[in-house]
């Protein structure tokens, strides 16, 4: 990872800070914070799905794990927000490893991997809805206790910066992965497992590392969500909506690229808000558009050849 490669990420961060300084509209800030949360969750999906080719339909499991663990620790056990969020992220990573250990060891991939991850997320959703510690169907409120020490901010622009820093971190991790041995092995596994194994790639180990890292990032998004809205319930934290959007954003914005999830999240949220403004609030309308967009992107792949794009980029950038 060279300084030049991290420049776009730095640019993004500076842009976010500028926006936080000059934009005062709560509607716009709200939109941006939510987009950032989504982009972080999507970056998590991207690590496993975009780079590793393992399409999860159940990343809500990790989002919800991050959200619930950090919220429960704060609310039920009085843990400070910072360690609580860290534990939430760790719990998501452990869950990712555990699911991966079962699922990848059993050799599930492709459609079966998609379905089984969906099933895991649903099991967690039903459990969260039925147990006491999660607040059951009523959900869980994190008590308002403003202050940077509690990771709660009165103004949305502080959250914008927090979200942007976290996303920048996620992008740096992704970039580092892309330039690492693990990243090369992960792409090799995505393209051809047998050929990768023949070159000494331990497929199971690579997939397990990828799913743990992926789950940690998506878990961080969940914890941030809980911190921002101070309320979660089972349908928010473990709902299919986040599984679907975490998958759609990278696929629409460019799977297997560092900026794809952010671009996709901006497109998705932009479309969603745009249709609300233009047509009014019809439930489900934005998702219909997402669905059409997904089919179109698959039908007419513009950027689903990240290697080619990246190669062209490098070609241009080379002195």
């Amino acid at each position, binding site marked *: 990872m060279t300084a030049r490669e991290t420049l776009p990420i730095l640019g993004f961060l500076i842009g976010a800070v500028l926006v936080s300084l000059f934009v005062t509209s709560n509607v716009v800030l709200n939109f941006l914070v939510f987009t950032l949360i989504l982009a972080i969750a999507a970056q998590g999906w991207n690590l496993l799905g975009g780079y590793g*080719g393992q*399409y999860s*339909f159940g990343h809500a499991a990790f989002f919800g794990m991050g959200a619930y663990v950090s919220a429960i620790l704060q609310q039920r056990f009085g843990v400070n927000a910072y360690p609580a969020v860290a534990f939430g992220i760790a719990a998501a990573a452990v869950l990712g490893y555990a699911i991966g250990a*079962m*699922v990848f060891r*059993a*050799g*599930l*991939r*492709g*459609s*079966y*991997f*998609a*379905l*089984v991850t*969906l*099933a*895991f997320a*649903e*099991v967690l959703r*039903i*459990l969260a*809805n*039925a147990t006491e510690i999660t607040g059951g169907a009523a959900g869980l409120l994190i008590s308002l206790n403003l202050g940077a020490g509690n990771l709660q901010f009165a103004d949305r622009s502080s959250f914008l910066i927090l979200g942007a820093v976290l996303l920048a971190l996620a992008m740096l991790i992704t970039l580092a992965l892309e330039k690492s041995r693990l990243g090369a092995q992960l792409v090799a596994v995505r393209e051809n497992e*047998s050929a990768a194994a023949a070159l000494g790639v331990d497929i199971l180990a690579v997939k397990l590392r990828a799913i743990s890292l992926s789950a940690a990032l998506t878990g961080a998004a969940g914890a941030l969500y809980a911190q921002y809205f101070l309320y979660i319930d089972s349908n928010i934290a473990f709902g*299919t909506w986040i599984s*679907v959007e975490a*998958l759609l954003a990278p*696929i629409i914005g460019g799977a297997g690229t560092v900026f794809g999830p952010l671009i996709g999240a901006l497109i998705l949220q932009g479309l969603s808000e745009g249709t609300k403004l233009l047509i009014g609030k*019809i*439930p*489900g*309308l934005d*998702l*219909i558009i*997402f*669905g*059409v*967009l*997904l*089919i179109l992107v*698959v*039908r007419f792949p513009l950027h689903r050849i990240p290697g080619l794009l990246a190669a062209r980029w490098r070609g241009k950038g080379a002195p």
Partner: protein
Amino acid sequence: MGYPPEILLEAVANGLLMGAVYGLVALGLTLVYGVLHIINFAHGALLTLAMYAAYVAHGAFGLDPYAAMVPLAGLFFVLGYLVQRLVIGPASRGDDSNMLLVTLGLSIIIENAMLAIFRSDTMTLRLPYAMSMVEMGDVLLSLPRLIGFGVTLLVALLLFVLMTRTDTGRAIRAVAKERTGAALVGIDVAHIYAVTFGIGTACLAIAACLLLPSFYVSPRVGNAFVLVAFTIVVLGGMGSVTGALLGGLFIGVVESLSGLYFGDSLGQIGIFLIFILVLLLRPTGLFGARA
């Protein structure tokens, strides 16, 4: 924990009846898998669409769901045919993950179109016979479910005749077995794919008409069925028609019994856990290892 035997027996019997309709839903899914080798993720959403269609047929035309069965099956055959021919086929270009994404896209579109039109309220038809019971020996059986059981068997029989006695059926089996070979002897594979998808969708229309008298409709109702159907298909063996029917009966009983013991909301977990376990424990060669 102890329930009197009549209650258990009744739960098992009603589970079997419900399971038959599950089997019908799974039948469409397994048929599509067996021939096209795709996991149709939109299966649940198409079922939702069919249930709304039956609901509207009753509301707008006063058509009883059982009377709507044949016309809706025809309509959904055409719909399925066109969806495969015009959307799934061209968009996925034979790639596994593309098919997964395209059918996911379809399910998102259908589900949310229903949400936009009918909103998220659950709706039920109030039919005079919805709560009717039939007494058989010691157990009371729900009449709509009993009818569902009978119709499912009839549909399975018809499918069997179609597959074994007609040219189309033979062509479908040929394509399922050896696509390239079938294409070489002049079978239009894209057409057969679409016909198969149409049949699978028509099965859903029939299942919807059988479910509606005793079941509610909501934009997400198909979700409840889609994983059930996948569980059944995996349990019964991907592509196996008898496996789908037997798997359906088994899952129906499991659901009924776990609902009895754990309550409805936790009872659903049983199905997901079975699904996960079945996927994890079956030998890998059967599943992921498709090169």
